[in-house]
Every structure is written in structure tokens, then in C-alpha cells.
């Protein structure tokens, strides 16, 4: 790669298709939910039956505008839908209602944080369209004797966002996609699930001799269904193009398919066989006039976006950048964090250890049992923010030790009970009684003359073994700080 990097410059643009989280489909009233039995969420409109007509889903337009505003795009006062023609059995009308010459929004950007600093990646356009159905082959595509079509997905709203060719490496492309996904999730317009196909990515990639001002021949790569695949496919493709140029070949403008299992891209169709989509304005829909007041209402309702939150979390709460990054996996997780912090003394908590303690507990415990990007799981966590704070308060006021707290956390998660109930019922309150602890320490010391001998000879780590014995004898309930202090005093006495 380094040889490639010194000789050539990489130019990448991404096209991202996001399924919108509307209840109904783009042009009919059918549910847009994923996973139903095949062909149960269909009607004459999304089956493309004769004589039916599309009606635009207002909510999908709102989601498009919301996203456009988050990317600083210009929302056009008027946009229109167009028909894009190609024959494919998963597309019932054999044309897709999309947008072509007059998209919903244009000219925005997305800032991505890279090791070398921040870069703004241009967004050329954002438009709305309908998804197609799904083909199920009996056997593999090559050997199938029959194929079935599931039209549940047909007509689900899609938002296509095309970046400018501003991305300079596969890593940047992956970073862009991560940041993009995060914004969509924060806006609540897409669940960002790449495995289920709610977020799909195609890439246009070309390379050119370093310093050249003209663009090389671009190749489109399809089937990039995870961050890892985006990066791997692009790395492969950049290498392939460099090797081709090095050996005097020219790059063919074509569409290539990423074969994730085999780790290479293969040619799907060349420019000569490219589709002529025969776009023309959709006559069944009138141009969409976007009311300025509506746009301003949507703008006013935009949430704080992940990058802004991270910056604020670092500056205001003193969180490490890494923690802030982990917490912005989903809007639900950030909400969880913010709610917990507010419960735990709010502004008074700022400037203390609390923000970091809280993020530690979320990262090491909560995200051990729940997936951070699963909005619903976080929102319906058996340990809601208030209860987590209840647990942390018990540590803070020395009722229990941090070690015991981890056990209590698991019990809370399993039973749905609060921390105090569990601690009191199971007798987990920390032993902080100097008299009681003194007796335990004395008996531990009596049973371990060798350790005391070692300690006196200067082997200070022997004390740790004694602390461990005391903790064991109290089944972890002893206040570790108190044990240390008492033990040191007794060791000094004898």
C-alpha cells in the first residue's frame, strides 16, 4: 500500500442508500417494517398493478429534509420525482420512482475526524426514491431452477446521498460512512442496520498519479454491506488499479461487485453495457413544493448531532475522546448517559470524577450486557439510568465496594431490582466497623506469620496478600481503604 500511496492519489466518492424509518412506504400505505412473512405487506400500488398511482409519503420528505439540514444542504424550493427504467423482476413496474434532475436537496458536507485532524467531505445531493423487492433463489444464483419475489420491501422509502469525490483513502471512506450512519441514527431517520440492509453503500473509486489534476477513470463498486467491507473492497480496488496502471494497462469504466467471502472485486458490466435509464419526470406526481416554514420548523427541531456532542462531552464533562466516541454509537446511549449524569447531581457533577466514573460503568458493564447501537435495547434497559446512579451512589458513599457493585449490577440486570434492595437483602453492605475489622485483621495476621516476616524484611508486596486475605474473610465486603489503613497501623505496632 505504501508504494501505491507514494505513486498514486486515491479519489473516492460514496453513494449511500438509507431506508427511512417511516411507518408506511414511500408511495402507499403499506407498513415499511422489516422481517414480515413474504408478500404480506403489499398492496396494488407497491405491486405495480395496472392503473394504480403513487402518493408521496410526507413523513419521508420530512426525514429527507431533516437529514439535508443536518448536512447543511440547500433544500430546494421545488423538487420532482422521475422514472428510472430498467427491467428487473424485483421491481414491479420495471421502473423505479426516484429523483433525477431536481433532487430534494443539494450541496452540503459532513465533517469527519481523522488522525490528522478534521475534514469536511462534500455532499453533492440528497434525494428520495422507492426501494425494490427481494429475489429469493432456490439454490445459488448460478444454479437456481426457480426464483421467488418478495415485494414486502418494494416501495420502502430510500434516501440516497451522494458524496463529492473528496475521500482520499479507504480509511477515510470508512470514517465517512461511520460518521454518516451516526448522524442518521441521531436524527432518528434510519436504524443504520447494515446487515439487514437498512444502510447500503456503493463506492466510486479512481486513482491518479500523485499531483495530477485530472481524474482517473472511475470504477463503481457495489455490495459494500459493512464498514469493514467498504474498507477492504476499496483497498483491494485501489491496489488492483495501481497494479493495472503500473503494468501499462488502462482502467476500464465499469461496475464491479465486491465478493466479501473471496476478498476481491469482479466486473459486473462495462460502460458499453451500462443501463440507459431513460429518465423522465414522473407524470403521476406533481412537482413537490417545499414550504419554507416547514423547513424552518424541522431545522428548529434538529437534535444535537454526534460530533457536537462529543466535542461538548470532552470540553464540559472532561471525558476522553475515546469515551465520547463509544457513547455516540447511538442516540439512545447518549440519552442514557445524559439522563444518568443529570440524576447524579447534574451540573454539580461536572468537574468531578462522576462523568468519567459513569462512562466507565456504561462502557465496561452496560455495554457488556447490551448492544450500544441497539436503540430499543438501551431505551428499555432493565437498569435504567436512575438505577445505575443508585448503584454508583452506594459506591460513592462507601456502602459497597466497587467489586461488590459489579455483582450487584449483574443481579440488577437479571432481576430488575434496584441496587439498595439487593445490597440490603443479600447483606452486601461494606464492613466499615473498625472494631469488627480489627478482629478479622488480627486473626489473619495470626494465621500468616510468614507474610508478616516478609513485610518486615522489606517485601512490601506482602501487605497485598494480607489485604486479600482480609477481603476474602469478609467475602469482599470490607472497605478496602479502611483495611489498608488498619493493617498498616497494626503492622507498625508489632
Amino acid at each position, binding site marked *: 500500500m505504501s508504494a501505491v500511496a507514494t505513486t498514486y492519489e486515491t479519489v473516492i466518492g460514496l453513494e449511500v442508500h438509507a431506508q427511512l424509518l417511516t411507518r408506511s412506504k414511500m408511495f402507499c400505505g403499506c407498513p415499511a417494517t422489516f422481517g414480515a412473512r413474504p408478500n404480506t405487506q403489499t398492496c*396494488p400500488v407497491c*405491486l*405495480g*398493478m*395496472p*392503473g*394504480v*398511482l*403513487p*402518493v*408521496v409519503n410526507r413523513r419521508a420528505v420530512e426525514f429527507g429534509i431533516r437529514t439535508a439540514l443536518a448536512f447543511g444542504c440547500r433544500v430546494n424550493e421545488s423538487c420532482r420525482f422521475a*422514472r428510472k*427504467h430498467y*427491467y428487473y*423482476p424485483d421491481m*414491479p*413496474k*420495471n*421502473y423505479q420512482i426516484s429523483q433525477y434532475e431536481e433532487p430534494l436537496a443539494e450541496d452540503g458536507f459532513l465533517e469527519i475526524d481523522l488522525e490528522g485532524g478534521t475534514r469536511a467531505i462534500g455532499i453533492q445531493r440528497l434525494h428520495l426514491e422507492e426501494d425494490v423487492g427481494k429475489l429469493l433463489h432456490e439454490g445459488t444464483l448460478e444454479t437456481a431452477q426457480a*426464483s421467488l*419475489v418478495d415485494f414486502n420491501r418494494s416501495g420502502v422509502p430510500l434516501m440516497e446521498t451522494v458524496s463529492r469525490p473528496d475521500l482520499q483513502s479507504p480509511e477515510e471512506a470508512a470514517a465517512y460512512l461511520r460518521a454518516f450512519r451516526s448522524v442518521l441514527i441521531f436524527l432518528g431517520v434510519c436504524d443504520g442496520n447494515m446487515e439487514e440492509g437498512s444502510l447500503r453503500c456503493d463506492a466510486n473509486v479512481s486513482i491518479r498519479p500523485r499531483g495530477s489534476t485530472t481524474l482517473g477513470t472511475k470504477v463503481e463498486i457495489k455490495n459494500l454491506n459493512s464498514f469493514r467491507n467498504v474498507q477492504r473492497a476499496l483497498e483491494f480496488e485501489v491496489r488492483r488499479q495501481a497494479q493495472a496502471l503500473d503494468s501499462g494497462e488502462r482502467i476500464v469504466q465499469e461496475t464491479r461487485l465486491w465478493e466479501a467471502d473471496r476478498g476481491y472485486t469482479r466486473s459486473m458490466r462495462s460502460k458499453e453495457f451500462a443501463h*440507459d435509464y*431513460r*429518465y*423522465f419526470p414522473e*407524470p*403521476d*406526481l*406533481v412537482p413537490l413544493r417545499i414550504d419554507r416554514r416547514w423547513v424552518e420548523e424541522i431545522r428548529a427541531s434538529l437534535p444535537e448531532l454526534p460530533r457536537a456532542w462529543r466535542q461538548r462531552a470532552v470540553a464540559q464533562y472532561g471525558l476522553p475522546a475515546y469515551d465520547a466516541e463509544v457513547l455516540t454509537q447511538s442516540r439512545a446511549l447518549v440519552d442514557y448517559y445524559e439522563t444518568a449524569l443529570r440524576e447524579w447531581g447534574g451540573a454539580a457533577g461536572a468537574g468531578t470524577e462522576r462523568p468519567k466514573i459513569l462512562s466507565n460503568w456504561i462502557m465496561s458493564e452496560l455495554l457488556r450486557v447490551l448492544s450500544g447501537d441497539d436503540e430499543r435495547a438501551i431505551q428499555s434497559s432493565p437498569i435504567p439510568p436512575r438505577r445505575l446512579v443508585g448503584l454508583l451512589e452506594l459506591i460513592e458513599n462507601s456502602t459497597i465496594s466497587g467489586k461488590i457493585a459489579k455483582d450487584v449490577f449483574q443481579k440488577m440486570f437479571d432481576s430488575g431490582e434496584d441496587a439498595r434492595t439487593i445490597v440490603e437483602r443479600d447483606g452486601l453492605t461494606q464492613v466499615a466497623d473498625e472494631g469488627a475489622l480489627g478482629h478479622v485483621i488480627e486473626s489473619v495476621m495470626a494465621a500468616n506469620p510468614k507474610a508478616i516476616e516478609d513485610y518486615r524484611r522489606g517485601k512490601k508486596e506482602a501487605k497485598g496478600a494480607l489485604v486479600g486475605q482480609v477481603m476474602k474473610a469478609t467475602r469482599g465486603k470490607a472497605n478496602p481503604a479502611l483495611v489498608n489503613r488498619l493493617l498498616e497501623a497494626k503492622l507498625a505496632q508489632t
Partner: protein
Amino acid sequence: MHRPIHELTDAYRRGDLKPTAVAEDYLARIGALDGKVGAYLTVMREHALDAARESEQRWRSGSPRGPLDGAPIAVKDVLCTAGVRTTCGSKMLERFVPPYDATTVERLRAAGAVLLGKTNMDEFAMGSSTEHSAYHPTHNPWDLTRVPGGSSGGSAAAVAGGLAAGSYGSDTGGSIRQPAAFCGVVGMKPTYGRVSRYGLIALASSLDQIGPFAQDVTDTALLLGAVAGHDPRDSTSIDAPVPDYTAELPKGVAGLTLGLPDEYFIDGMDPDIERAVRQAIEVLKGLGAKIERVSLPTTRHSLAAYYVILPAEASSNLARYDGVKYGLRVAGRDLVDMESRTRSAGFGAEVKRRIMLGTYALSAGYYDAYYGKAQSVRTLVRREFAAAFAKVDLIVAPTTPNIAFKHGEKEDPLSMYLNDVFTIPGNLSGIPGVSVPCGFSTAGLPIGLQVLGRPLDEARVLRAAYAYEQATSWRSRRPELA
């Protein structure tokens, strides 16, 4: 019983006539005579009798649903009917049974109309003679050797031949007005967007409009009023109140200015038509209308623009018929072979011709020269009408340049296309127009007078047609079928 709907319902109200008797009479006539005419593709006998019985109950209990309750009506087979096969005149949809009603059909059922059946048409509404039905041609009740016009020829012939009291068709370039003129009935194309297109199998989406055929102008007003109005399922339908068209009819033409376009009297048109139309204008003048010459020079480019826009949209609308989901499927080696065989077998020659024309016109590199240019012409046509309507209230003209021709007479597609030269500008501009009978040729074949109006001004268009109709007696003449 062969009388206008408003007279039938008057008789229902008085108790002189029963909807079941009328339905049975029409079904009997269809059984006896439609073998000659070929107006129907599907007769909905049981459905019609059920609907007539229900209507009779309502009339008997004094709660009819309105002026169409119990009216025996036919609809062009381009309109989807739930549970009743809808072929669009094509083999492609020979066994297609839609699970939904077109909005027009839904509104007719709600109005208590008795649907007699689905009428014949040129395949996918492409044609001007109803010879291009994949099933059988329809014959003109005035002369069975002649065509009824098209593409809604079945609907026009049904009304002319007394095989339906009224009917509906669709008009993309004249497909209601031209057959109405050929068959001597009233036919109206409303403003684009006045009647919902939901459930109308699309030919050219930006031009298609549903409208009625009737025995007289009063029925036309009733039939239009029953189906007009906004439909949330059609984004291009206009959200404007529907006036009571019948209430407007008696207002007359006194004081109205009627425009007479120079470009609608062309060389080569049938002299009988020119004579009849000029006489009709004299009649209107006599009723107090002012006549003024107007010029619509873009008319001569309309046909060319139309034959780019229509095939372009049709090629797109017809892409869905691929054998995958519904309709005809011809097995093949693989998917592409199946689709190709299905489309080869399912579509007739005229449909294929237009799909090819349209596909070409939309191709990369040709779009601007064809589709783009045609849309510019369309804008000019619209502006020209707007300018004319700034000076005049209505435009009067012949509906067609010729009378009903003989079957097989127009083999050449171009001479067939020329039939629509006076009706196409109304579709390109979206304005309403009606064809009302205005006489007969020397051979005894009907001639139509076309009245065009401003967008959404159907009331005034009908008013003029009504004034003319009431001043003349053409409608008393009927073809002899039996």
C-alpha cells in the same frame, strides 16, 4: 326503454318503470344485438341484475342514492373493476382480475349505477377505430361496415346502439370525443385532473382523462358530476369543488363569446363536416352567442408533439407487463427469455410500435431532441389556448376532420393518427372539451361539434352544448339495429 338516464330515473321516481325491468331489457338487447356491434368484452349479467334489484329496493323505499341510481351503464375495459376481469383490450391482461375498483367505478357503484359490463377498445387505448382490440373489432351502429372510432369505440357504440344508457371511456388524444362524433352521441373529456385516474390503466399519464358518453347533454352533466372531484389516491387530481353541472345547463349562450379557430378548418377535411359545423355556429349565433375568429397556430405541431409524448409515457407505463406478477406469462429458457416471449405474444403490433417509438424518444442523447422538444410544443399549445381564452369564453370547432371510415380503410398508421388532429390539442393543454352531434353526412353518418373551454370550466362547455342540443333535433334520429 331506450331513453336518457334522466328520463329513466324520472320514471323510477314515478313508479312507471323498474330498474330490474330496465336492466333486463338492456341485457336482452345486448344478448340479441351485441353480436353485430361487438361493443362489449365482458357482460356483467349477474352483477347488473343484483345491482338493479338493490336499486329497486331503494326507489321503492324512497331512498335512491341520486340521479344515477338504477341507471344501466357500461365502462370501458381500461377501468379496473374489483372481481371482474379487466383486459384493456389486450391479450396481455386476458385473465387479469383486479382486486380493486377504479375510483370512477367505486363512485358509480356508490351512486347506485347498474354496471352492465366492460366495453371494447383499441388495445391499451392505442387507436382511433377499435379495430385494434385483441379480441374483436367494434362496429358502428349507424353502419356496421364502418368503425365506431376509438379507442373508446365500445363505449360509444354501446350508447349509440341502445346497449347501455350511458357509458364511460378515456380520452388521451380524442378517444372519447372522436368516437362520440362517429357514433352520434355526446362525449366529454373533462379538464385533466377533474376525474381521478386511480384504477385507469395508464396509456399516457399526463394526457389520460376519464369522461362520459351519453344520449344527451343533461345525462353528460349527470355522469360527469357523479365521478368528478378530488381523490387523495391521485396526486394529479384537482382539489376543487364540483359544481352542479345540470343546474348550469339552462343558462344559455346569450352573451358568451365563442372563438372559431382558423386552424380547425383544413384542406382535405370532409365538406359535409365543414358545412355542418358552420351551420351549428349559425345556430349558436342565433341563440345570442358572439362569434370571434381566433388563431391557434401551434395546432399543426400538436400531432407531432403528441406522438412523441404519448409513446414515451406509454413505453414506461407498459414496462410492468413482463409475465412476472400478473397477466399473461409465456414460459422461456430463463427470465429474459420469458419476459421477451411474454411481451412478444401479449402485445399487438400497434402497441409494439409505440413502445419502440417511446423507448427511442427517451433514450440518452435523444431525450432533448424529442421528449424535451415535444414538451416545449406542449407549453406553447397551452399558452396559445390561454391567450385565446383571454378573448373568448369557449372555442367551437369540428371534432374530427372526417366521418366514420370503413373497417380496414386506414391501414397506414399515419392516416389513422390524423383522425385526432382536432382533439389532441385539448389533451396537450389539459382543457375540457365535449363533442355533441351536429348533423349527418350525405351518407347518413353522424358529425360532431366540439366545444372547448377553460380549465375547470366544464359547466360553461356543457351549457353551450345544451343550448345547441335544445335548439336542434339531431338526437331524435337513431340507428336501426334490429
